């Protein structure tokens, strides 16, 4: 077919990609995959932490000790009755001795405890979810009924869970920036290498009147397109991995730690754009810095 100038359209002035850029594309795709996966993991772990916190905040445990002639079991039953009448308490129930012993057995072993050991009894309290009672309300009611009891509102555990959730979130953010930095460094290296390998082309462009911006824009476009492709591959890979966790993680311990929801996979959507943006900015800045020293 003969060449038709009227149908000619300017293509890229850079030669087609070589094998090096294929390897670069693969590495950036892997980095994008890890970045997306860490974001999905952060969202899921935060959800897990929120769930655990809600469970803990919605309940309290009361330790009831025997006092005077009243046995611990009788005091626990009376405490459960008192607490059930407190406004904002949905349910209060005394745990039987066997359950209490099972809890203690975790720490002191399975051998039965001496019958005369004054082991306190436990009362589990579930709060009304809309208008929960406070621990102060429980304490006041127990004191008013003359019960020797300690209210444990799980605040220690709640704080630890929240700290763990925050740690997971910041770790994911840190990981994202670390991966972005690594991707940027790779693109910067590839841009320098590309400029060096295409020195002759760059010189001809300069001598033909091209500005540094014109030359930098070529490398910017090349690497942004490549990063967009890599970001798409990495994002799709991470979304598939997340979907796998959602579908096959049910009933596994992993689902308790990372309860991935379908909506979490949305974080993979901006991956190609973010990857392209990082690559474009890095390539442009690097190219401009290198070209500054050319004639």
């Amino acid at each position, binding site marked *: 077919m003969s060449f038709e*100038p009227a149908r000619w359209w300017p293509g890229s002035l850079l030669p087609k990609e070589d094998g090096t850029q294929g390897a670069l594309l693969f590495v950036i795709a892997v980095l994008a995959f890890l970045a997306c996966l860490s974001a999905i993991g952060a969202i899921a772990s935060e959800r897990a932490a929120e769930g655990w916190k809600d469970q803990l905040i919605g309940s309290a445990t009361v330790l009831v000790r025997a006092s005077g002639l009243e046995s611990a079991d009788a005091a626990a039953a009376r405490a459960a009755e008192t607490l059930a009448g407190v406004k904002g308490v949905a349910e209060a129930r005394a745990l039987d001795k066997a359950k209490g012993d099972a809890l203690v057995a975790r720490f002191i072993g399975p051998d039965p405890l001496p019958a005369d050991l004054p082991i306190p009894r436990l009362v589990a309290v579930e709060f009304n979810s809309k208008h929960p009672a406070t621990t102060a309300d429980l304490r006041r009611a127990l004191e008013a009924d003359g019960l020797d009891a300690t209210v444990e509102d799980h605040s220690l555990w709640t704080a630890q869970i929240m700290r763990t959730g925050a740690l997971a979130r910041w770790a994911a953010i840190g990981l994202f920036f670390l991966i972005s930095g690594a991707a940027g460094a790779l693109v910067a290296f590839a841009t320098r290498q590309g400029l060096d390998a295409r020195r002759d082309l760059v010189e*001809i462009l300069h001598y033909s009147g091209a500005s540094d911006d014109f030359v930098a824009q070529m490398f910017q476009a090349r690497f942004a397109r490549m990063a967009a492709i890599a970001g798409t591959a990495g994002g799709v890979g991470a979304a598939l991995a997340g979907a796998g966790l959602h579908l096959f993680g049910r009933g596994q311990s992993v689902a308790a730690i990372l309860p991935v929801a379908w909506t979490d996979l949305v974080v993979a959507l901006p991956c190609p754009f973010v990857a392209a943006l990082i690559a474009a900015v890095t390539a442009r800045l690097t190219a401009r810095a290198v070209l500054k020293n050319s004639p």
Partner: protein
Amino acid sequence: MEDKSGDNGPAVRFDGVTMAYGSQPPILNDVSFRLERGSFHFLTGASGSGKTTILKLIYMAEQPISGRVELFGHDLTTLPRRERPALRRRIGVIFQDFRLLDHLSAFDNTALAPRIAGRKAAAYRNDVAELLAWVGLGSRMDALPATLADGEKQRLAIARAVVNQPELLIADEPTGNVDDAIAQRILRLLSELNRVGTTVLVASHDEDLVARSGIPVLHLSDGGLTRFDRGRRGV
């Protein structure tokens, strides 16, 4: 449109220019000359006499160690780097080794300067096609440089250099790699460009061709200018 503010001098002016590469002895020593707009000159001299260096100083690939180089009235030794592209767009350069872009077709190579100047493709693709036909490459527009003969490459290099109708055309040994018939044809092409107002400076070591052409000569020897013909269109 290029910014031509401050344009009030000759096309090229060298004033006491000394140039050396690294710690080598100066290749140009206190060289002064001026090329008026619309003039045509040959730049002659033995190999290593500094012909290519003079061209490089004009297209801003090198800077002199002392003296002043002016292009269209602009002092290139003090010109900010960001202003070089606009001035370079007013020059066409034909390199000794062609320096064609091997991955681009003859058409793409020729279209380089208009693209860089930011012109729309529809506005210049016909010009490019006509120019390639004018240099005798009308049937090789989609050919890659590697498939062209030396004479064709030379003519393609000329087409690339003149496509934007430069005010100054500098050529480094444009007839160095071709036979006499093609050399004469290339010289005719350059003369035609000069006739439409382009200032032309051609570096050549081909004494016979220079003598036969009757074109004014700047001759370099021992780092200095030893002959300077003023020519028909004033120097």
